[in-house]
């Protein structure tokens, strides 16, 4: 339903904020709440001298980055990727190798950025030949091939993965911390993921993003606007790939190792569960979803050995009863609120 709107909105330029802008604003309000909540949590945890919950939350944020990348594809191009762990794992392995070679924090991120652009361009050319359900399957197949190659390569630690990733100092000029500081690294990750969120939100709010959404709604009309659908989709795919890789690059800094499980289907599948639970197409939903599911897994896992059942049932319930996800459910209500406020002003 949303999808048809941008074109209608474009037809009436008199109205300053269209429906899509409203939705994005609602997401930003939720994002601000998210950051405030995280800061509050960080302060309380730091006061209590906590280590575990800060690191767990950092991990949740890192996997939120992966989920965000799935959402770029699912929410904005309507394509479900079942193999996004490919780029997440790539980022993690490249980062681990670079850090082990003694390369600095900034240098490592730069290397991951460059390599992820190159690989997601190649991957994008392969997978964007197909659409719909075939896209889900081809991304799945490609991730399986790469995961198996890493699993079989002794130089990459094979099934054991790589340990011994050193603790890395993070110097941002005005402030410095280290990957070993639970609160410091949590705050850094929060800033990092928030920046990725803002960058992606900005990109999707530009005309490019509008075209993406138009493409999702009506494939045939876009070429008349002067864009090649293939190029537009490829750019979206690369943005998603780079997002996943940058998030993945933080993983070995936090945990000190990488293992091939990061590339497996379980990782991609969990990201999809996170996006759907949080709300596809909201960008902020994956972040909430990741925190929620990580907390749930951690608590339920300590109670019962059958935590999979709990997660599975919850997930099915969301798919059936909240097709727009938990955050999507809230966001629509926020949008309506904004709409009323706008109308009152007019």
């Amino acid at each position, binding site marked *: 339903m949303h999808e048809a709107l941008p074109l209608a909105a474009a037809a009436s330029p008199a109205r300053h904020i269209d429906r899509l802008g409203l939705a994005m604003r609602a997401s930003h309000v939720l994002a601000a709440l998210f950051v405030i909540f995280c800061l509050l949590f960080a302060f309380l945890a730091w006061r209590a001298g906590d280590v575990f919950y800060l690191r767990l939350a950092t991990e949740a944020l890192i996997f939120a980055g992966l989920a965000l990348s799935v959402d770029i594809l699912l929410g904005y191009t309507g394509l479900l990727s079942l193999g996004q762990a490919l780029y997440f794992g790539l980022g993690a392995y490249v980062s681990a190798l670079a850090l082990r070679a003694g390369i600095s924090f900034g240098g490592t991120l730069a290397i991951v950025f460059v390599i992820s652009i190159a690989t997601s361009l190649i991957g994008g050319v392969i997978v964007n030949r197909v659409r719909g359900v075939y896209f889900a399957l081809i991304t799945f197949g*490609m991730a399986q091939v790469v995961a198996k190659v890493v699993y079989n390569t002794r130089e990459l630690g094979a099934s054991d993965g790589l340990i011994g990733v050193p603790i890395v100092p993070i110097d941002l000029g005005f402030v410095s911390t280290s990957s070993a500081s639970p609160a410091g690294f949590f705050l850094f990750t929060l800033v990092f993921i928030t920046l990725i969120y803002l960058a992606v939100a900005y990109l999707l709010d530009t005309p490019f993003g509008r075209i993406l959404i138009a493409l999702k709604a009506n494939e045939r009309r876009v070429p008349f606007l002067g864009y090649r659908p293939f190029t537009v989709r490829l750019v979206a795919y690369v943005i998603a790939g780079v997002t996943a890789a940058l998030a993945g690059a933080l993983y070995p800094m936090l945990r000190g190792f990488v293992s091939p499980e990061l590339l497996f289907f379980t990782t991609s599948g969990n990201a999809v569960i996170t996006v759907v639970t949080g709300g596809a197409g909201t960008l902020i939903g994956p972040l909430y979803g990741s925190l929620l599911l990580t907390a749930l897994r951690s608590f339920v896992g300590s109670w019962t050995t059958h935590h999979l059942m709990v997660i599975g049932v919850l997930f099915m319930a969301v798919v059936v009863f909240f097709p727009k996800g938990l955050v999507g459910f809230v966001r629509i209500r926020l949008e309506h609120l904004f709409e009323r406020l706008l109308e009152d002003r007019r």
Partner: protein
Amino acid sequence: MLDYLQFVLAPQMVTGLSLGVAVVLVALGLTIIFGLLDIINMSHGEFYAVGAYLALSLGALGINFWLLLLLVPALMIPIGFAVERGLIQRVFNSPDRHVATLLLTFGLGIVLEDVLSLIYGPNTQRPSTPIRGAVEIFGIMLPNYRLFLIVFGLLIVAAVALVVYRTRLGAMVRAAAYDRNMAASLGVPVKAVFAGAFAFGIALAGLAGVLLAPIYSVFPTMGRDFILLAFTVVIVGGMGSIVGAVAAGLGLTQIQAISSLYISPVWSDPIVFGILVVVLMLRPQGLFGRLGRA
């Protein structure tokens, strides 16, 4: 040279064939569900496991294996019917049916696997082989049960193809798959047909469970075993195509058998997934067309 052919290559291809038939049996239900309902059933592997466990439990009660071949699929039909009506239909008409049903069945698979481990515990169990002994062909032992599986498996596939392509019931189902509104206006009970087709696919998964349990043994995570290969077979063969599933199933397992001989078993999985990616790139609809469309 002849020696090598006789003792290494030929037996390798025959065992590859028996694995191929096993994969086709699992893929058969999958491809029918996709071809008719446009649903990727991610929980298919777990239904295969449910069939195997049902066979194990009922076999422990003393029920004969040959009876189980009928009884287990019969028990799976109401389960499949209930899942289609109770779960799938809830999201069947959502704007993105593929994604919604894929996700729903993905969740269902996770739950089913955990339920099985809750009921049966984590250990491996194995029903005894119903047909014992082996025959010697050209100096190579071939277990009778494997030979039975190859023949019986192919018979089942042929029977299913016959029902789908050559009967009035099949025509109704294909009509519903092709254009549900048109079919409905012609008096085809579309809802019942869809639920029935889903239940039929699930029953086939259960049947595969009964047939394969003596060879591959039974444990809660067994559903993950075949499902990746079965998906690959369904995609490469063309989703919804029974002929395609047979061709791809037998072809890919031969490629695996030969490549594990000449390259390494370690690389046989990446090779098969590589083929999947290449086929999707060049011919996304698969090597054979779709059911209802062809």
